[in-house]
């Protein structure tokens, strides 16, 4: 064997296992899926039999479905609010645990722990909190008696249920994002802060003039990370609200907190419209692809500035 053929054989041999799995579960299903979005595909259909091309029908049908439009809107609202809530909480926590606290390492670990537990389990815990623990608080403390009113359960109304999802999302994710901010804050040269202190800068000015500008790089990372993760939220949605409570839109009953990922799932398995679910998934993919392109663009621009 010559050197060159040996290199080529090793190259393909080393890539083979990963390529095989990747092609089997990503590449083939991705192209099949993109194609199915434009066909009359149903769950009984296999790859080749009885498929008919229907153009953009699945997309136009989706756009006529109030539940999809509503999901789209509410997913954007949830994503933006969740992103803000997580990052503000995480940054505040990071400032606290990088300070001169005695138990700061224990605090860091505690804030981080929810992140290790899966969203599905966290959702059930909080369903119990919102449906049982919070009303019970209302019966114990007279001033909070409105909490015990069964008609005013937090998960019983759209807006408060969405707020509940943001609370859980923040609780789950803030500790992780905090760790990224902690790494950024601890990278700030200590001399800078000492010098600012000498010049009489208050903690607030030091925060504005030193800490925040020097953490700018990590803001890009955390913003996009929370943006994409909030947009893809599924597990907490399933176990906390299952998309409920129901409400009406354009004369049709819809689910009040059904985010896009859950809407796609329900379209396929509850409404049994597989090709339409596939079309929605395609739109979902396009949105994420655009977000990623923006992220790459922003990062490139930042690199040039540096």
């Amino acid at each position, binding site marked *: 064997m010559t050197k060159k053929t040996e290199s080529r054989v090793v190259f393909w041999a080393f890539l083979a296992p990963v390529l095989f*799995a990747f092609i089997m579960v990503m590449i083939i299903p991705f192209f099949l899926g993109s194609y199915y979005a434009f066909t009359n595909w149903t769950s009984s259909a296999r790859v080749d039999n009885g498929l008919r091309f229907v153009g953009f029908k699945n997309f136009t049908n989706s756009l006529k479905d109030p539940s999809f439009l509503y999901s789209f809107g509410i997913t954007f609202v949830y994503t933006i609010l969740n992103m803000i809530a997580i990052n503000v909480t995480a940054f505040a926590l990071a400032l606290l645990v990088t300070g001169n606290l005695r138990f700061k390492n224990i605090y860091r670990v505690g804030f981080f722990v929810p992140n290790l537990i899966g969203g599905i389990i966290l959702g059930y815990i909080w369903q119990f909190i919102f449906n049982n623990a919070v009303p019970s608080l209302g019966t114990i403390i007279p001033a909070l008696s409105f909490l015990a009113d069964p008609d005013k359960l937090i998960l019983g109304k759209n807006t408060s249920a969405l707020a509940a999802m943001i609370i859980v999302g923040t609780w789950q994710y803030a500790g992780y994002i905090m760790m990224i901010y902690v790494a950024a804050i601890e990278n700030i040269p200590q001399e800078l802060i000492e010098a600012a202190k000498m010049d009489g800068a208050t903690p607030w000015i030091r925060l504005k003039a030193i800490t925040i500008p020097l953490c700018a790089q990590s803001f890009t990372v955390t913003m996009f990370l929370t943006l994409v993760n909030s947009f893809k939220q599924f597990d907490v949605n399933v176990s906390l609200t299952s998309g409920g409570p129901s409400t009406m839109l354009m004369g049709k009953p819809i689910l009040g907190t059904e985010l896009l990922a859950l809407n796609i799932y329900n379209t396929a398995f509850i409404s049994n419209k597989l090709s339409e679910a596939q079309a929605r998934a395609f739109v979902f993919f396009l949105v994420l692809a655009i977000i990623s392109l923006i992220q790459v663009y922003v990062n490139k621009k930042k690199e040039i500035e540096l």
Partner: protein
Amino acid sequence: MKASQPRKSGTVIAEIVTAIIFLLFLFPFLLVLINSAKTSFEVTQYPLALPTRWGNLIDNIVKIWTSESVRYPNSLLSSIIITAVSLVLINVFSAMAGWALVRTKTKTSSAIFFIFVASMVIPFQIVMFPLLSWFRTVTDVTGIRLLRTYQGIILSYIGFGAPLSIFMFHGFIKSIPLELEEAATIDGCHKHQIFFKIIFPILTPIQATVLVLNGIWIWNDYLLPLLVLGKGNDVMTLPLAVSNFAGAFVKQWDLILTAILLAMVPVIIFFLFAQKYIVKGMVAGAIK
């Protein structure tokens, strides 16, 4: 002395505020623990009270352990097998691929790497339905069962976990000097020996990151096992088991919370042992 006085009181306030937030953060877990030690009646009537008899905790744990719908021992074992085997294979295969892609400078090589990176944008939602029908087709043609089996779900985890893992190995391997490998070649080492004897051991820090990121994802994953393994299967992961149980025993919070407690315990124990690596790994993974 005077200057340090206000700062000290500031620190005390910060310490108290942080401690309160810390307790609030962990309070949900405390609720799970105390309510796992109650009877069904107690849970619904007094969810915030301490349990009257801690012995109930043992009773509830026994109920969940022996429950037909959670099948805890079985699910725990399945979860461990799926996570462990997937992790080992993702780790070794992605490291191999990352090395091959860095050290081979051809157009094909860069194109393959680009496809891996670009595929990170693809959400699971667009591939999940075709994946199921494709797996069925593969079974029809080859007779190899992929749905509802270990091999099917492990194959899926390798495929979905590979892009990020390869990307991370790729970045790390780029920084390893080529001289190291050239020296080994002169000493008569074959390519595969170079990788397994020299490169792979150097990769330990990035391997830790890859294992942590994939481990947390796979252990907690819900949607992929739900679709690939399905319900009422012998192979069932813990998140799936908990969700089945919660669906079947609606409002039986004493038992649901015990199931949740038992599902969390392995993670918490593991975290306490590997805390340092987990936090480091997750932060490194995010920044890259």
